[in-house]
């Protein structure tokens, strides 16, 4: 461990993106064995079991919600956007790291993305699934969700196109579609590898169907490269647009503390921040559990730590500008809101969010912290919590203290709010567990390509 750190200290550029001593065959063996031959580790059963319990809780909580209505949640007037919107924004934000890694880092030719892009993309898809649940359930009558689409309705009703909430429908559904396609297209060569290596009949059949007849010919590879570049080009604006639209939900919402022009870039930075925190939260235990330290090296962890530090500073800049302008503006409402955040009923959440999002991650300036998996894991968890608190403070504090004191109120989540939230975390983790069990969590062919490039040097 100490040796590894010294190596990185000595020459950052030379620190490998793949440990030496691997051949094409050993890469393929090692990654495909996790799915095909190696016995499933005990930890997998324990982890999946616990996550599945939470999935059951989610199913129960949602069933109860559908019979009783959203009144079982803590939402009220004025705080009509409680946990549902907080969790929606939190989950959507987490997805952004996957898109950034797979699209923008691909276009920027960053080699270190290769071993983390596959499961980061999977994380994006599962996070967007969890995110999508919340606005749907929050509708009250989720079975009418299709009213949000501009279909030729016999009632002659069209959605309100000036509302960012309608833009959300388009932004999120586009995001999900493109992410899913991107992920699946990237999987095809590896699915063919699994098909070729599978011994049993059913896996061979299933992977064979999914591989869509991939034979690895030059024409196939040529088309694959073109398709993935095009999809990367399509996905790149989505990294920015989705959370920008989410930020418009607030900025075009008039309430003090919401209507702030810095929100779009600061939401996007926050999304990438929380996304990388989630990638680290998943990558560090996974590489340990399956012994993948050769592929997900300290270099990867260090680079992700640096992305977190940079985006975290942009988030801090956003907080600072909000604070400064609320003081500078002279608007009594903006000023009071900032005062209430710091001293009001939700003050613990506000100070905790500053601690988790701003203060603790400053440790990332230190190289030793950036190259210590344990320290990175702890910081990543802190950022996950901090980003959730941030959305809670934005949503709840502003709604509970708007312009008119007679309209002020209080909010707290009920047991059902917590059940749905914990349930989606369970759903997310359960999907991740299924994913690492059934599909190669690291892109086999991209790692082989990386080995080729590295050995040419």
């Amino acid at each position, binding site marked *: 461990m100490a040796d590894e750190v010294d190596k990185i200290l000595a020459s950052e*550029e030379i620190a490998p993106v793949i440990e030496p001593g691997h051949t094409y065959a050993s890469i393929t063996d090692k990654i495909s064995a996790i799915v095909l031959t190696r016995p499933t580790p005990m930890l997998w059963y324990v982890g999946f079991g616990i996550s599945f319990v939470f999935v059951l809780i989610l199913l129960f909580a949602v069933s109860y919600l559908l019979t009783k209505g959203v009144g079982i949640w803590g939402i009220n007037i004025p705080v009509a956007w409680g946990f549902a919107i907080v969790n929606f924004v939190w989950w959507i934000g987490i997805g952004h790291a996957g898109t950034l890694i797979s699209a923008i880092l691909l276009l920027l030719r960053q080699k270190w993305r290769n071993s983390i892009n596959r499961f980061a993309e999977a994380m994006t898809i599962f996070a967007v699934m969890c995110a999508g649940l919340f606005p749907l359930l929050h509708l009250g009558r989720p079975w009418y969700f299709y009213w949000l689409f501009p279909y030729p309705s016999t009632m002659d009703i069209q959605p309100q196109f*000036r509302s960012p909430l309608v833009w959300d429908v388009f932004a999120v559904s586009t995001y999900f579609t493109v992410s899913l396609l991107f992920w699946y297209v990237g999987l095809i060569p590896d699915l063919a590898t699994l098909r070729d290596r599978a011994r049993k009949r059913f896996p061979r059949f299933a992977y064979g169907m999914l591989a869509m007849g991939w034979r690895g010919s030059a024409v196939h590879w040529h088309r694959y490269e073109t398709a993935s570049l095009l999809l990367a080009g399509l996905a790149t604006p989505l990294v*920015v647009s989705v959370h*920008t639209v989410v930020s*418009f939900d607030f*900025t*075009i919402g*008039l309430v003090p503390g919401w*209507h*702030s*022009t*810095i*929100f*779009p*870039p600061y939401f996007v930075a926050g999304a990438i921040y929380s996304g990388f925190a989630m990638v680290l939260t998943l990558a560090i235990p996974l590489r340990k559990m399956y012994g993948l330290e050769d592929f997900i090296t300290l270099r990867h962890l260090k680079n992700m730590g640096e992305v977190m530090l940079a985006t975290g*500073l942009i988030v801090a*800049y*956003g907080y600072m*500008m*909000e604070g400064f*302008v609320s*003081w*500078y*503006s*002279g*608007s009594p409402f903006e*000023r009071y809101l900032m005062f209430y955040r710091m001293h009001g009923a939700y003050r613990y959440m506000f100070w905790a969010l500053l601690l988790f999002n701003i203060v603790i991650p400053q440790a990332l*300036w230190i190289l030793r912290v950036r190259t210590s998996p344990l320290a990175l894991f702890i910081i990543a968890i802190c950022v996950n919590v901090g980003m959730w608190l941030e959305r809670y403070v934005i949503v709840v504090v502003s709604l509970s203290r708007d312009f008119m004191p007679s309209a002020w109120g209080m909010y707290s989540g009920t047991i059902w709010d917590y059940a749905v939230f914990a349930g989606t975390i369970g759903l997310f983790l359960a999907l991740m567990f299924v994913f690492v069990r059934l599909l190669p969590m690291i892109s086999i062919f991209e790692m082989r390509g990386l080995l080729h490039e590295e050995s040419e040097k």
Partner: protein
Amino acid sequence: MRERLDAIRNRALIVGVVATVLCIIGAFLDARQFLRSYLVAYVFWLGLPLGSLAILMLHHLVGGRWGFIIQRLLEAAVKTFPAMALLFLPFIIGIRRLYPWAAAHAGGAEHVVTGGKAVYLSPAFFTARAVFYFAVWIACSYALTKWSREQDRSEVSFIGRLQNLSGPGLALYGLTSTFSAIDWIMSLEPEWYSTIYGMIFMVSHGMAALAFAIIAARLLADDPPLAGAAAPDQFQDLGNLLLALVMFWAYLSFSQFLIIWAENLSEEIPWYVRRATGGWRYVALLLIIFQFALPFLLLLSRMAKRRARSLAWIALVVLIMHWVDLLWLTAPAFHPSSFYLHWLDLAALIAVGGLWIGAFAHYLGATALLPNDPRFVEALREAEAT
């Protein structure tokens, strides 16, 4: 090369001094108008060293080959901070004529300055902050250029030191450039505020500085040493970076506009009304087309980016439009809803520009045009091998 830069310096200084004399005459004729014109010109030219400082620190942190080509151009630009600090003096002297809040402080009470502004917008605090900004910028640029020059001569690598400064340096840069934009331009309309304002300025300074560096690199690229080092690949990278900044500028500007337009609040919307009515409306359209749409479409083309000549023309459009943008941000505060261009606007632009380019050419001639960075030497060797 040295003689050519000296010739440029001398010619620029002559033009700058002549225009400065005109500006001084203008200042005696109409001090108020002089300050208004001088503000736009000053911020335009100051944006070049400011943006250069940010790109330079970013380059030290990420270290691509594109950065080494323009590193010395950026360094020459940031060396002009002390000279620019001197040129800031007219604002301190004329503060009451330029800023309505300063006039209010002096008892003119044209605007009622409330809240934090009463503390923040006071002449003494304003001056103290400006001193602080320049101290930060001069200190950062001094260290960066000094270590880079020392690295040319010695065997020891200064990369670690340059990187250690650049990380915190960028954070400090973010703070100082944000608040300088708020102090010097946003406060012209003290009742208005926008939290994204500083970020828009940072991005447009970066865009202007990169455009200037591309133009300068193009002019120097025909002769050694740049001729050997600046291949189409590097211009393509610079073009991509310019494209990213153009898109980022448009994204931030549009976000600010959409949020304020959709809300239509009485304390915010007048800022846009002043800029979207009368003659200013056409300036705004001009900005949309020539600061965003046209460069965006042209920069999508690989060919346009790989040819240094075409890239430099696009960069020139971006640079000129940056001045138009600053005029559009500033002048409607004095002439709401009707387009207004004074001869002093152009005279001041040429005066500060002549002096600035003179200083830039002087500093550029004083060092080797390419840095002796081990990473760069390595990259050049690799390129030669293939």
